[in-house]
């Protein structure tokens, strides 16, 4: 399942698919002909998808286009009617415990402090070790929440809570992270802060991210690829490469290439050429 690609793009360390130039890229996630129907409604028509290791891929689309269904199938919460999902070459259909997963709701448990929320996955699967606690403290200190380890979630702001939720996802050590509109409930300024923060963490952690969002700007700012989905039946209608150079910061938001991609995506979502 190893595919070699060459970077086609000018000077950027990662090309459109997130491949690092000169390094053989590996497919981490592969969906082949995955489909799902609820009653007589096709929520996901047969879908193929390859996600390479280390890439950041966004999914945009209106409500009901099947993007959350897609996530739930990859995470193992839903079994597809047909097709196969392989992660690092291994079929994971109907299985759980192989991805990191985060929603718009932070889902922190109110009865545990920040440190114990970060170690939640270990507590739920095998019991928390001293190493887990050390790692939780290290991650929290590194990403600016070191002084809040003993705080209960209700004492934190929305942005801080989402950061804790993301750290909890990070310490599961899953190579694939599914983020379903994680910043959707935050105000615009906090959201931009969180996006920049996420890019830093992503670059350092080397994880592969699949990111659902309603925000076209967010999808372009963050990702190497943008998948545009459409409802009735739910399907991927476009797979757009984003070659904006990394590391990215706010100036990217006014780059002509950014505006060009944005126009393309907006036309796909709202325009006539859908």
């Amino acid at each position, binding site marked *: 399942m190893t595919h070699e690609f060459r970077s086609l793009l000018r000077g950027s360390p990662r090309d459109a698919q997130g491949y690092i130039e000169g390094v053989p890229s590996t497919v981490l996630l592969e969906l082949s002909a995955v489909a799902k129907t609820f009653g007589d409604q096709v929520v996901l028509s047969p879908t193929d998808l390859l996600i390479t290791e280390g890439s950041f891929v966004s999914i945009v689309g209106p409500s009901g286009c099947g993007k959350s269904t897609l996530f739930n199938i990859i*995470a*193992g*919460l839903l079994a597809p009617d047909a097709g196969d999902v392989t992660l690092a070459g291994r079929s994971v259909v109907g299985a*759980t*415990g*192989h*991805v990191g*997963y985060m*929603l718009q*709701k932070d*889902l922190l*448990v*109110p*009865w*545990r*402090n920040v440190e114990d929320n970060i170690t*939640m*996955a270990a*507590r*739920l*699967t095998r019991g928390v070790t001293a190493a887990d606690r050390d790692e939780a403290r290290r991650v929290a*200190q590194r990403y600016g929440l*070191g*002084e809040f*380890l*003993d*705080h*209960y979630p*209700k*004492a934190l702001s929305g942005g801080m809570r989402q950061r804790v939720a993301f750290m909890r996802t990070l310490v*599961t050590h899953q190579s694939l992270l599914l983020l379903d509109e994680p910043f959707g409930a935050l105000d615009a300024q906090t959201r931009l802060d969180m996006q920049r923060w996420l890019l830093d963490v992503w670059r350092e952690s080397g994880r592969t991210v699949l990111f659902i969002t309603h925000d076209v700007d967010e999808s372009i700012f963050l990702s190497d690829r943008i998948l545009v989905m459409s409802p009735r039946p739910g399907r991927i209608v476009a797979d757009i490469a984003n070659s904006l150079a990394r590391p990215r910061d706010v100036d990217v938001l006014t780059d002509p290439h950014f505006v060009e991609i944005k126009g393309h995506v907006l036309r796909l979502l709202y325009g006539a050429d859908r």
Partner: protein
Amino acid sequence: MRARVVGWVLLPLASIGLLLLAWELVVVVFHVQPYIAPRPLAAIQAVIDKWGVLWPLVLGILRETVFGFAGGAVLGFLFAVAMSKVRVVRRLLYPQLILSQAVPVIALAFPLTAMLGFDSVRPIIAIVIWIVFFPVTVNVLDGLAHVDQDLLNLAKVYGASRWRTFFQIEVPATISPLFTGLKIGATYAITGSFIGESVSASSSGSIALTISQANGNNEEGLVYGLTLLLAAIGVAFFLAVVGVEALSTPWLRRTTSRPWRRRRLATSGADQ
């Protein structure tokens, strides 16, 4: 802090004081005869005068109430868990639960006493359990049904086992409804003990029998005094449950856990 003392201690005490004052005023203003209703202080004095005989009986009713309450809490919780996990159990048990509470407890007290012994605390404890388990079951069942489905899904995505999910998520998420049930149970428990004592024929006596005898002897001071005492025990029980609830849910009132450790971390953070 001072506002909290005023709000949570002084005002409730003042409210009870006002109630006793109103009682006193009614007795004095309307010239209520002592054999109808004594003045509150006379009622309290009557209990103090007989405290030497009364205290073992007070200990007795406390014991029945505590054991019955604990039994009812455990049974009520187990019922709720079984009903929430197994649909057949829920369908079978729910009508029985409602039936159990529709029956007047005092009517049940007679056959229960005949079954479990006239000169025994067992029927009394059984009645308290009967009264206490129901609000616990109903509230915990409701709590378990309302655990955030997204949180349960998250646990599933992590690959969590059902047991760990139950103890790490469902049980703590149900702690507030559990205490709602326990608080209702705590106020009813003393009534259960009283009904049980009224029906049983304990050879060593009981508070309920003492009240009954005092009523027959026209010792209204003792009747009112013991009734006040039972009410005070009920209130103390309720407050004890509220106290345990506060201790077991620090996240509802506190900003941080372990404040002593936070200080240490704050200094180590400043070193960096």
